[in-house]
């Protein structure tokens, strides 16, 4: 009984993190982007720096009419936002933020995380097809092409720290992590982060949703809460990518006073990586289709393979 109660408490905490962290990232994006672009943005709602604008946006989304286009495939159209969002919630269950501070410890946590994250793509593809809109379909095809190119380097780069730590458990990888991994795992870190950005379709890899040419691609026909769910999925994706980068490459909760402040270290690292994601959106122009494919196949895949070879060599050297 106590076990069940503890598990329930952990899951409630994960749900809380899922509801709070993406909104925090969203709010940070509003404010940081505004300052980086030398504009103020919404400053009045709620008083201090317009903190209530996010809540006002939420209320606005909830009030909007839920439109399903006449030619759309209703069932798939309605289901798509949930398929896009739920995987990120499930993934958060397995990500540790402190020693023992994890929704559910899994022996093969890395495989679980990679497998479930891959499902989220289907939501975007379903949205792109079911909208019965040519812009949406074009967006959906771009999503599929981009994901097929970037899934491979993403998974290959994620394998490297697991090989170095000789375990597939995410907690085990953090425990085996040492500061010098920052240097010899650096190529893997870069590949993982860049490929992860592309999987989330975040700028500079936002060609599938390109608002100025495709009018938001797969999400063109969505309004109200369903559109908000897609936005939430994007922010939850940023949180998951930042958390995975932290756990796999940045040593998770390791740092001074890790015994007492481990969770704070994890959250700080996650915050810094999320901030980097926002920064890249402001700083880097969108890549073209051919540039996207060239980057994936001619740069990221070879670098990831080189990292794997290096990790194996060091592993054999250390016995």
């Amino acid at each position, binding site marked *: 009984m106590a076990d069940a109660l503890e598990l329930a408490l952990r899951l409630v905490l994960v749900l809380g993190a899922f509801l709070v962290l993406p909104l925090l990232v969203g709010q940070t994006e509003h404010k940081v982007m505004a300052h980086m672009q030398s504009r103020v943005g919404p400053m009045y709602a709620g008083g201090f720096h317009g903190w209530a604008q996010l809540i006002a946006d939420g209320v606005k989304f909830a009030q909007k009419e839920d439109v399903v286009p006449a030619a759309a495939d209703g069932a798939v159209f309605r289901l798509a936002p949930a398929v896009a969002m739920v995987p990120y919630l499930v993934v958060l269950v397995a990500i540790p933020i402190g020693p023992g501070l994890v929704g559910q410890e899994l022996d*093969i946590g890395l*495989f679980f995380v990679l497998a479930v994250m891959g499902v989220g793509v289907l939501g975007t593809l379903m949205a792109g097809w079911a909208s019965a809109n040519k812009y949406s379909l074009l967006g959906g095809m771009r999503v599929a092409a981009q994901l097929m190119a970037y899934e491979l380097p993403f998974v290959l780069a994620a394998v490297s720290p697991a090989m170095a730590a000789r375990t597939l458990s995410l907690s085990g990888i953090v425990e085996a992590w040492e500061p010098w991994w920052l240097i010899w795992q650096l190529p893997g870190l870069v590949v993982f982060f860049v490929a992860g950005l592309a999987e989330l379709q975040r700028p500079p890899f936002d060609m599938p949703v390109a608002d100025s040419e495709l009018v938001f691609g797969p999400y063109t026909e969505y309004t109200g809460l369903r559109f908000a769910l897609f936005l939430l999925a994007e922010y939850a994706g940023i949180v998951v990518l930042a958390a995975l980068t932290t756990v796999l490459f940045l040593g998770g909760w390791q740092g001074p006073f890790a015994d007492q402040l481990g969770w704070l270290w994890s959250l700080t690292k996650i915050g810094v990586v999320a901030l980097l994601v926002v920064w890249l959106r402001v700083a880097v122009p969108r890549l073209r289709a051919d540039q996207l494919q060239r980057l994936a196949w001619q740069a990221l895949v070879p670098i990831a393979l080189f990292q794997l070879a290096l990790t194996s060599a060091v592993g054999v050297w250390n016995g």
Partner: protein
Amino acid sequence: MSVVGLLFLLMGAMAVGSALLVVTTARLVHSALWLVVTLGALAGCYLLLGAEFVAWVQILIYVGAVVVLLLFALMLTRAPTGVQTGLTTGNRVVAAATAGVVGLVLVTVVVAGFGGARVSVDEESVGSATSMGDAIFRHWVLPFEVLSVLLLAALVGAIVLSRGRASSGEETP
């Protein structure tokens, strides 16, 4: 019947039911989406049998990669949102009979080969990554290597086929 047994039955029924929908639905993209349900239910069966590693690999490879590839191909060709007619082949009776016979043969082979074997699902080590790795890289390493060479050959073949057309195109400008 235990909870696990009941869940297994449920997953099995889900896999078979959605597999039937894959071949009977009148919308091509719905077929691909029902295939996701089939593969997911199958992964659930693996999970309930303690084969954790195989279950997540199933999701990663089939749902995350193969179905995405399928959907991409469907979107590239023709996939209207409405009902399509003439999707079901005229050979459906023969096809169903063939599928039934193949299924019967497979079930017979598995029952004849492993019918009496009992593996305790409660033991955690049965389908873990460690035991799978041990089995593949110690006992079954030769078939594993042969398979990898086969896949490599297929990969090289695909590249040769797609490049052959490109170079002949260059010769006749």
